[in-house]
């Protein structure tokens, strides 16, 4: 029996029972649409996380203090010790032993209430050096960044991110104005261009000041702490070499011979990206698996309806066998019918799932949240279609074989 004939028989059978066929297809349709949509949501989250992490600045390496050297036996936790110094930053910046590092900057964080006129806002204040815009990939939109002289002289100047500007100044020009951070006056000398990205780790909610000024006016007597060093490698491919070089410099400076006893930790953008990606991938898989359950339920629906169809058409099977249909012919016919049912359901499910994923960002409740827009991936579409046809095949085999094994005499006698 040729394929065309089998398809013709399948369609005429399905058209004869339109409601039943539609309901059976609906089972597969919902399953496939759910898989497409939920995997798209997972993909959307992955894309958003990647964008945000990428926006932190490419090729960036973070150096954090750690307390592996502590002898007390009690770990004090990540970042609690003060092992990094300005001298470490300078050593990395001499670039004699680390040709793959472009620049390194110290970071001293200070939380603070910021006020201007009667406006009031909270943003972390970052104390750093003049290479900050280069290392963290910030552009100056207005005014200028502070100079080496500002750092040397502990000038109380700040450069603001767009979010801070909007919240404190609205539409008026912030350049030259004086704001107060923890009741200390700072003069605004520049504004960063917006970096985009929202929610998690917004890059526009920043206040940047010379590290010496932060130490002198905002650290509250905690001394010249450096919470982290941020270095940038010359390119994405040299990040690993740059990490090795920085590790060597710091081990030498801290007089540590065993790298496992290091009192600092390195983390590159790539490390963070990898971690985030593995979490997002796990999320996508879990969502897909949950949706996959409904596909299996749809498959059982197909098996059920195919069993009914075989019983109903027992006489027809008998006639076909009497005029020469072999086991293989009957099997093929019913398998094609089951696969047609599930394949069509799958194709419609893909359309519905993709349409929902496309429309989701336009739904007001979703648009106003920071919910990532779903991204439909081509592999998930192909996989979902393949799986739906496969489900037809798998769940169709038992009913089809039952039909193909019917004895022609008994099948003909069936009323």
């Amino acid at each position, binding site marked *: 029996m040729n394929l065309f004939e089998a398809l013709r028989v399948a369609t005429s059978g399905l058209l004869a029972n339109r409601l039943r066929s539609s309901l059976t297809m609906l089972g597969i349709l919902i399953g496939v649409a759910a898989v497409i949509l939920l995997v798209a949501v997972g993909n959307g989250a992955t894309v958003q996380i990647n964008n945000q992490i990428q926006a932190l600045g490419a090729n960036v390496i973070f150096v954090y203090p750690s307390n592996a050297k502590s002898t007390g036996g009690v770990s004090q936790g990540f970042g609690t010790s003060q092992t990094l110094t300005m001298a470490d930053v300078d050593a990395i910046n001499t670039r004699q032993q680390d040709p793959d590092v472009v620049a390194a900057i110290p970071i001293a964080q200070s939380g603070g209430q910021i006020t201007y006129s009667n406006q009031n806002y909270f943003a972390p204040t970052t104390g750093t050096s003049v290479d900050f815009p280069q290392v963290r990939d910030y552009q100056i939109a207005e005014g200028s960044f502070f100079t080496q002289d500002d750092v040397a002289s502990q000038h109380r100047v700040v450069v603001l991110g767009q979010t801070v500007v909007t919240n404190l100044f609205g539409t008026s020009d912030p350049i030259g104005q004086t704001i107060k951070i923890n009741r200390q006056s700072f003069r605004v000398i520049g504004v960063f261009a917006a970096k985009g990205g929202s929610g998690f780790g917004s890059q526009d909610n920043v206040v940047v000041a010379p590290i010496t000024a932060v130490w002198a006016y905002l650290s509250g007597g905690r001394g010249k702490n450096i919470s982290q060093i941020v270095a940038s490698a010359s390119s994405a491919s040299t990040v690993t070499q740059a990490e090795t070089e920085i590790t060597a410099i710091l081990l030498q400076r801290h007089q540590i011979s065993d790298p496992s006893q290091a009192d600092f930790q390195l983390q590159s953008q790539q490390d963070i990206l990898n971690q985030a990606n593995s979490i997002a991938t796990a999320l996508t898989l879990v969502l897909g698996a949950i949706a996959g359950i409904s596909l299996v339920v749809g498959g059982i629906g197909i098996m059920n309806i195919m069993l009914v169809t075989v019983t109903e058409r027992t006489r027809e099977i008998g006639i076909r066998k009497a*005029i020469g249909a072999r086991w293989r012919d009957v099997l093929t016919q019913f398998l094609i019918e089951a696969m047609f049912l599930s394949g069509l359901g799958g194709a419609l499910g893909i359309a519905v799932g993709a349409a929902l994923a496309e429309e989701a960002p336009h739904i007001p409740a979703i648009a106003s949240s920071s919910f990532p827009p779903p991204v439909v991936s081509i592999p998930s579409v192909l996989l979902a279609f393949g799986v739906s046809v496969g489900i037809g095949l798998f769940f169709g085999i038992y009913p089809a074989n039952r039909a193909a094994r019917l004895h022609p005499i008994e099948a003909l006698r069936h009323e």
Partner: protein
Amino acid sequence: MIRLDAVTKTYRMGRVEVHALRGIDLHVEAGDFVAIMGASGSGKSTLMNIIGCLDVPTTGRYFLDGTDVAKLDDDQLATIRNRKIGFVFQSFNLIPRTTALHNVEMPLIYAGAQNRRPRALEALEAVGLANRAGHQPTELSGGQQQRAAIARALVTNPAILLADEPTGNLDSVSSVEIMKLLSALNAEHGRTIVLITHERDIAAFARRVVELRDGVILSDERTAA
């Protein structure tokens, strides 16, 4: 054309063995028109199933057109039915929701034959139903449905035409028409026909009448016709 040697058929119904056929010897030559008669329970349906290769004998041998079919498996039997036997059933047994033309084409599809459409049309013409080719079974009268069924039986050019109570569901006018059609196919085209019936006036259209009772042949006579 057909040769049955000491064919028996025993069914097992639960614990009881039913001897449907108790030793049948039957010879049908090419071009003959044989009616097999008998009351219900006489074994004529069992005999038809065996002649039609829908079933195999318990013992004995059956040669159809020179092939020993007693030992064939299901798929081989299906191929034999497709190539050598044309069935005409009491209840027509056309496939629903399928045009007369497509019904007639069906055996050719299973045979993997070429030129199916023209051959199917030709067969419909031979039974005088070419003008109803595009109609579905529900749109045809009983007589027309049976003609379509005869066209389907003829389309593969089989060795024998096996008609099981072909007039059982028809009124007397249609019955006569169908029997005249079968007689003509036999007389003018030399078709070998085996007819199963319990009606004597229907059997009278055949050239030879074989009467069965309790699984054995009671009489085997040439008719005047």
